[in-house]
């Protein structure tokens, strides 16, 4: 179900109504039924894969738990010395990890087949002159999100960070809770599941806040993202016709679009969940205010970054192999750099995986590597930068320095966006070269600017809407809680503001026939 539709609004309202009138102990069942209906409505056949994943983690979880219970029983009954206990613990960990690895492997295999089969076949056809036909598989809804979520469950179980769920239906609810199915966030079991199973009573303030957040999400999605999409699509879709500064406009447009689109979607999802009493994990914290790329990734798609950090980066960087590599490098590279080598390698690998997660194509690998390399370089050259700052006596505790850092980070982010949005890696490089070489700034004065997909009026609307977004973001950055702040205002002001927001979305939003709302960018991943 498209979350930008009247049907979705009616669905959320209907589910909320049924949820609050259902007896308290069955309220989670309401959510489960709604979530399953939502998923089945998307595609009946593809729902099989969701059930396979849910069954795999259910049984995997039971096996891990059984092993844990067995271990605890052995620990109690067997009379073991310290070494024996350590050996038993190691064996227990090993068995649990195997179970977890098996479950993860099954789910990753499904995900890889759906996502990369055609890329693999294309590569084979190209390099081995084979003639294998493409599979054209349709991706199950939210597979990239629920697969990671499923893996996190068995991994956390293995690490003892959460309790096993012995009720399959409850586990299924956690995996396919309807607001999050389209584009996340990637929830952790221990954070979200208890909220889903707890019976929430109707809370006027929470419901009101949830609706406000949804409205804000629709503003970002329909008024900003779906408006600016014409600009970015036209420039990157016809990149052969443009050069120089036009691509800067395109990159900026896409940078705005993807943020408004993804974070707008998150607000709609978060708002819908909030109405039902569930607080989704935060996925964005004003990422374009970041002062470095690594900070940016701590603020952008937070749940994905955290997933890679917890389940790929940490295990890799502290693995035995990493320790051996560090030791091997010590003689040649010295103690400092050799200590960092495993971290850097793990980091680059994480970013390559991050890139691949976003899409099947070399440009996504390059996108990931670009981010990884920037972070590694930033870390490695930090002492050099500090030295330069000291030597030039640059003040770093002032607004101008922070602004410079933010602008610099934004430019680097836009570079990544070009790789992401361009039709291919070669095209991305061509665009980058064109920006560096051609400085046709007159596009802003000779009328070209208004022929790039948005006319003057829409450009004006976009400008004002982005200004509103920026103002709200600055206030949030300063710690102002917008909804609470509005709540304290007089009724006339509050209602006026709400109605103005509704009218803005209704009138200035891009939706309806002949103005198809663009699909969510992240829903495609």
């Amino acid at each position, binding site marked *: 179900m498209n979350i930008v539709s009247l049907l979705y609004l009616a669905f959320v309202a209907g589910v909320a109504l049924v949820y609050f009138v259902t007896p308290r102990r069955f309220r989670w069942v309401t959510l489960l039924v709604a979530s399953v209906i939502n998923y089945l409505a998307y595609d009946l056949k593809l729902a099989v894969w969701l059930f396979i994943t849910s069954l795999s983690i259910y049984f995997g979880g039971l096996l891990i738990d059984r092993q844990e219970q067995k271990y605890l029983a052995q620990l109690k009954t067997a009379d073991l010395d310290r070494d024996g206990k350590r050996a038993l613990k190691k064996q227990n960990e090993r068995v649990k990890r195997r179970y977890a690895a098996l479950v993860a492997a099954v789910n990753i295999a499904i995900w890889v087949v759906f996502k990369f089969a055609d890329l693999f076949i294309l590569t084979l056809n190209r390099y081995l002159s084979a003639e294998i036909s493409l599979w054209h598989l349709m991706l199950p809804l939210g597979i990239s999100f629920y697969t990671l979520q499923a893996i996190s469950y068995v991994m956390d179980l293995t690490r003892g960070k959460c309790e096993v769920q012995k009720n399959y239906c409850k586990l299924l609810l956690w995996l396919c809770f309807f607001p999050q199915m389209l584009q996340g966030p990637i929830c952790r079991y221990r954070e979200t599941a208890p909220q889903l199973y707890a019976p929430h009573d109707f809370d006027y303030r929470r419901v009101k806040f949830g609706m406000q957040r949804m409205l804000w999400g629709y503003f970002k999605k329909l008024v900003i993202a779906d408006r600016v999409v014409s600009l970015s699509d036209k420039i990157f879709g016809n990149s052969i016709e443009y050069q120089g500064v036009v691509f800067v406009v395109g990159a900026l447009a896409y940078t705005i679009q993807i943020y408004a689109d993804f974070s707008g979607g998150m607000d709609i999802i978060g708002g819908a969940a909030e109405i039902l009493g569930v607080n989704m994990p935060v996925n964005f914290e004003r990422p374009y205010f970041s002062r470095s790329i690594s900070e940016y990734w701590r603020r952008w798609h937070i749940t994905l970054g955290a997933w890679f950090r917890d389940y790929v980066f940490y295990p890799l960087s502290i693995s035995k192999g990493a320790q051996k590599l560090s030791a091997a490098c010590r003689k040649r590279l010295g103690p400092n750099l050799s200590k960092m080598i495993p971290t850097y390698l793990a980091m680059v690998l994480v970013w390559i995986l991050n890139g691949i997660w976003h899409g099947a194509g070399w440009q996504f690998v390059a996108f990931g590597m670009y981010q990884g390399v920037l972070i590694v370089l930033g870390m490695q050259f930090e002492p050099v930068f500090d030295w330069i700052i000291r030597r030039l006596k640059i003040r770093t505790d002032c607004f101008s320095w922070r602004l410079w850092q933010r602008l610099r980070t934004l430019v680097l982010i836009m570079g990544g966006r070009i790789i992401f949005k361009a039709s291919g890696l070669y095209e991305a490089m061509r665009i980058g070269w064109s920006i560096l070489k051609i400085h046709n700034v007159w596009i802003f004065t000779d009328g070209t600017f208004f022929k790039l997909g948005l006319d003057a009026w829409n450009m004006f609307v976009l400008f004002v809407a982005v200004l509103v977004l920026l103002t709200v973001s600055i206030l949030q950055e300063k710690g102002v809680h917008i909804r609470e702040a509005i709540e304290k205002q007089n009724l006339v002001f509050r209602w006026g503001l709400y109605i103005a927001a509704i009218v803005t979305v*209704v*009138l200035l939003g*891009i939706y*309806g*026939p002949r*103005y198809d709302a663009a699909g969510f960018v992240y829903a495609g991943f």
Partner: protein
Amino acid sequence: MSLRIKRIVSAVVFLSLTVFVINWLQNLVTPKYDWPEHNRRSLKSVRSAFLEPKNSLDAIYLGTSQTFCSISPMDIYDSSHIRSYNLATIAQRVPVAYYMLRGILRRQSPKLVVIDASGFFYTQEELMVTGKWEEMVDSLPLSCYREKLDMMKDIAIMQGREDDTGYLMSAIIPLLRYHKNYKVKKEYFQEHYLHQLYQRKGYVATYNFVAVDKTEVKTAKAMLDVNDTFASDDDKIETLEDCIRANEPYLEKLRDLCHAHGAEIAFVKVPVCTNTRARGYWSANKHEMTQALADRLGVKFLDMCYEDLGLDWQYDSFDGGIHVNHRGARKISARLLDWMQQEFGLSSEPNEKLDRQWAYQSDVFASEVEYLDLELEHDLFKFFDRVEQGDYTLFTTVSNGLGDHWSDEAQRRLEALTGTKRDLRDAKNAAYISVSSHGRIIEERHGKKSCTIEATLGDGLRYKAVSKTGKGKKNGMVDIWGVDYAPEGRGIHFVVYDNNLGCVVDSVCFDTSTAELTALQETRYQYVMRERLIEYVHGRMNGM
């Protein structure tokens, strides 16, 4: 008041307020389907049909623009007291007609439904032109929500967007479809007509005439005598058959719908000219196929194209033979009435209240027609008669000289009408201008080659008139407030300014180089005139 009740009340008030604001916005951006500058029909007259008193209509007409220009319910009422309504719309598709009828039958129980066959020959692709459907969805009142939703569903299926709830819901909430209309030319969304054009009953009275080349026109009798097809037939039989195949199921549904409501159904074809311009609008093939279709469905069919209705295509059409003007419509309406009475025994039950209302509207309609008759006048002497009777300022200018056919009688009548002492017979190739009112000359100029008057009349009317001799097509000009109203053509031009309405109400050129004194018209004045006329009629309605 407890907190819970307070919150419920607060939520209800907030929602109502939001709905009110959104509804206001919706009214602002939803098209009104008025195209005043094109002199096209307002779809609001469709809405007016639903304002007719319940079960008050005896007959309903469906069809295309040819139908709404040809059948005048008020003329039919004046002759027979049969109350009817013309529900034809521009290029009305049969499926659209079906839904419209379904909607109107919720309020009315007519004895007869007449559908014009012009719309039977839209191809499957043409049937799927969604704009034609959407404007009708918007024109039906909310009480016909089922028809609106069903039509929208049909459109959605045609467009392959059945799952688009927003699109389906836009049948009820048009804002979902038109929320971006603030970008569209604003005139299309303004309410040009404050009242409902109630007295016309869906009929579009057109005033002017565009002459048809006489040599192309054959009378119906002549065609029947030589068994001729009355129009050049370029239609491919296969295409026409496809059209019939596409439309027949809907016509069947229409027939069944009528029968279910106790109404009879009839097919008619209103006349079109036989000239080149109207080619393709009707043909012998279309006639035969419609007749066969009517036979299959058990429906009576009257093809007025083959009947001698006394239509004079030189002056009875406003666009050169495709659509008739009010003169033509009177003749067609009379014939249709005759046929409906003879074939279906159509009559009207006396109803004092309804008759009083219709009589009143008939009177208003007549006051509107007074003006139409001046415009439709193509005979120089009858034109003089009509101008003499009104409160007008007359601008007279000669273009390229008067030629040889400016007669003594014409001179005498002009002198009586304008008060001029200038004998135009002496200056057949000279320039002449006059401005007169009530038999008195206000300004007058003449010259051998050209003359000009640029002045302001007592009531502030600023004008410039030019008369020239020479070979150019346009050597006469009457510019009022920056608009040149004089038509192209040689001879004597008259621009009639109505002193009460404060606008130009007629502009005609009589070609005095021909013995027939052929009349040519200019239509640029009609937009303003229509507005003023409507205000006038509206004022009269309120005043009565």
